[in-house]
């Protein structure tokens, strides 16, 4: 074990050296001046948007270097491997709330040290001792305006109503959010969703099952389905559906009865660069930085003050804009972390029948 630690230390030293060479011209802050932080973000459109909003301004302010890599949709397995082997290839990584919970249970997260007082304007749902939210995404649905012109669906009950709203439909092949949608369609008020009434949810799903043409599995696929007109109504993450609309697809989002959740930074436990990582994470709570990514990513800033510097037209498509978030609720991570394994099993069995 000692020998291997030596190897990784040597590699780190080399990286540090390289970082120092790169950062030398910048104004150095004594503590972290030569540090390179490896940051794992969701990749794709996130990388340039986060570089503009967070990485580049942070580099300029602190003299540290941010090297960003793309992480997987669910990086929990990798995160666990990194902490358990002490191979800190990532210093900071974006996590969903559900990933945060899993990692917290296994004690794999480092405290971020960010207090509510340090970050005025931050949503309380976005701050944990070991997690700092950067953006809010929501699960809603979209419909094609070329197929459902005057007769627009406005709720999940409408989505379920195949007579009044004919058209091809797609849902996500995953119990998360889909069960909530089934209950909302069946008339359960948004505020009374949790704990989910499973039997009622599956009974509601039984009704829509024969009318679902596509069960999608990935975010990019949902964009493609809406953009190509393969389906006329589809559940999905707001930014993925917005991407089709931004690309010219005739479609409209329905925020009513949406569920939102938070994505944000976590630091692998035991990371020797945790102090620098905390510095970075705190930087990302600044409203003026968060506002910068919204021009490219249709996600909601977790700091409400960011809306001071976002134009009103763009705010309309962001989940945390007051007009949108008031129609939605936070998906319950507590309920899901408790029940996910069993519910996933039941949902998979239900799909096959």
């Amino acid at each position, binding site marked *: 074990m000692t020998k291997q630690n030596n190897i990784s230390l040597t590699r780190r030293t080399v990286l540090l050296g390289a970082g120092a060479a790169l950062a030398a011209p910048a104004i150095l802050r004594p503590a972290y001046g030569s540090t390179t932080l490896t940051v794992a973000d969701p990749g794709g459109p996130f990388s340039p948007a986060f570089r503009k909003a967070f990485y580049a301004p942070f580099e300029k302010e602190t003299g540290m270097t941010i090297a960003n890599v793309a992480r997987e949709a669910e990086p929990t397995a*990798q995160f666990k491997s990194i902490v358990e082997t002490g191979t800190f290839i990532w210093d900071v990584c974006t996590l969903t709330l559900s990933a945060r919970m899993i990692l917290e249970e296994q004690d794999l997260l480092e405290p971020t040290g960010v207090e509510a007082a340090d970050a005025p304007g931050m949503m309380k749902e976005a701050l944990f001792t070991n997690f700092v939210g950067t953006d809010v995404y929501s699960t809603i649905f979209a419909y094609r305006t070329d197929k459902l012109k005057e007769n627009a669906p406005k709720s999940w009950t409408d989505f379920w109503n195949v007579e009044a709203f004919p058209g091809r439909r797609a849902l996500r092949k995953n119990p998360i959010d889909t069960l909530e949608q089934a209950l909302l369609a069946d008339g359960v008020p948004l505020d009374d969703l949790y704990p989910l009434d499973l039997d009622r949810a599956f009974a509601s799903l039984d009704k829509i099952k024969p009318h679902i043409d596509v069960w999608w599995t990935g975010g990019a696929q949902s964009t493609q389905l809406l953009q190509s007109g393969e389906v006329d109504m589809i559940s999905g993450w707001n930014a993925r559906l917005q991407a089709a609309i931004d690309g010219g697809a005739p479609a409209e989002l329905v925020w009513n009865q949406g569920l939102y959740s938070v994505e944000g930074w976590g630091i692998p436990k035991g990371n020797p660069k945790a102090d620098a990582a905390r510095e970075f994470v705190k930087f990302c709570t600044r409203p003026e930085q968060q506002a910068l990514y919204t021009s490219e990513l249709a996600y909601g800033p977790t700091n409400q003050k960011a809306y001071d510097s976002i134009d009103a037209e763009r705010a309309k498509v962001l989940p945390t804009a007051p007009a949108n978030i008031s129609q939605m609720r936070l998906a319950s991570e507590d309920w899901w972390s408790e029940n996910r394994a069993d519910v996933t099993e039941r949902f998979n069995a239900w799909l096959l029948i």
Partner: protein
Amino acid sequence: MTAAGLSASPRTFRLRANALWLAAPAIAFLVVFFLIPVGRLLFLSIQGDTGSLTAEHYDRLLHTEVYWRILIITFRIAGLTAFFSLLLGYPLAYWLSQLKEQRRNQMLLLVLVPFWTSYLVKAFAWMLLLGNQGVLNRLLGGAGITDSPLPLMYNEFGVIVGMVHAMMPLAVLTMMPVMSGIDTRLSQAAGTLGANGAHRFWMVYFPLSIPGMAAGGLLTFITSLGFFIVPAFLGGRQQTMLAQLIIIQVQELVNWAFAGVLATMLLVSALIACWIYNHLFGLASLSAGSSTADKTSSAWTRRFGFALLEKLAWITSAVTGRFSQGGRGKILPGYVALIVFFLVAPTLMVIPIAFTSSDFLEFPPPGYSTRWFSLYFNSPIWISATVRSFGVAFATAIAATAIGGLAALAIARSRSRFGGVVFAFMLAPMIVPRIVIAVGLFYLFAQMGLVATNLGLVIGHTVLSIPFTFVAIAAVLKGYDWRLDQAAASLGAGRFQVLRLITVPLIRGGVISAFLFAFVTSFDELTIAIFVSGGLKSTLPKQMWDDMILQLNPTLAAVSVVVLVIVTAILLVADRLRR
């Protein structure tokens, strides 16, 4: 190294057993980089919270029907894929094997086209072809053949189309070297004894081609068991495969104990399937000398087999008798053209998409531009991923062909009763889900300082490639005449000289196939790249995956076109140099 240690033992002079030591490098390699890391992970499945041994996780499996249903679905999809890959690929392989070598090599380029297009891009190409608003449905609707769009996708049909398309080149490339090794004079001899065309084929040629089919069927079947991208994108609600569930357990639920249970379930049932397959189709003919196989297959199965083939011969001659002589000659080329079109169509569609002006993968493109190519060529990330992928794939191909080839030689030459065990062990990396190997390797590599290194990638990919190189070379060795080696040896050639000057040149077709399989396995590998690279040493599939996980854009198509051009150029140059 281990081989040297072993050969020092006093049993060295037992010539037959001796040959098994050629498998030592493969066994040592797989023990270190496969058995130990995977075993460590699977061990979690019998460990309780306190570290004591427990059967609770297996108990859950026994009491949950859904996993057994999904196991059946997985086997059904893999079985259908293997069946159609063989059935549709056999005539193509036959046709190729009849061509002169130079022309065959050129034609092979076409068969290999789908190989060079990433699984990810192929899946999306099929979505554009088979969708409700897809190319096929628009053609059929436009021609007035169908009134409403046909459900070609999001069902079992879509999955099978996508998977057969991905697997058929593998089947063809495994069958073809065996077929070209069949002595054509045997058919002629049957002809002079009065057999007509159909009888010559079914009674003489077909039985001789069975080792190729057995190997091709096995490779496609087992590879298909691990698929997850195609069923996710082209399947409907009922097409869920076990690998998808294992990925969910590993990555989303982080329940590695239960992931270990599911992986063990897949592994054990795949091994049972191999065992049954072996008894039905005489796979043992690959692992041991043909004489052993003859002994094991009882007389009545042989008689039954020949009776069946004779029936087939009668039917064939009755059917083909209805065609004129000229018409009969056109059936095979016509069929081959159709199948080759099936193989290249998705890739052909990718080419115009790469030049699209749209931000989406659309067919036909609304306008044309080269922006996606300039995006690719101006991106240091894409270029370095491309260079790394070619380098890693090349190193993997060399390592896996050498290691797997020696093991195949060992199995073919050895009569040891351990042959079967070694054979199963060589195939194991193909059966164990890649995500399990990937997680296991991460822990091992972390201890060795190999995380996020190119060497780590090469080692991981070599583990995955050995089964392919091993089977491809074992299949050609099956028909190999060992008396040629003996003749050379009796004329004074040393063992290495025999290998270099006699054996390898004669089984060249199989060695080339093995090399290509290993190259492609590495070139298209995603899971190990995700884990071992951690995003720091990105390969092409990993880079594509990052790009497409949230938003698909035509860069993927542009990358595919660049790769296709590079690979075709390399293969053409290699072909020139050989002449």
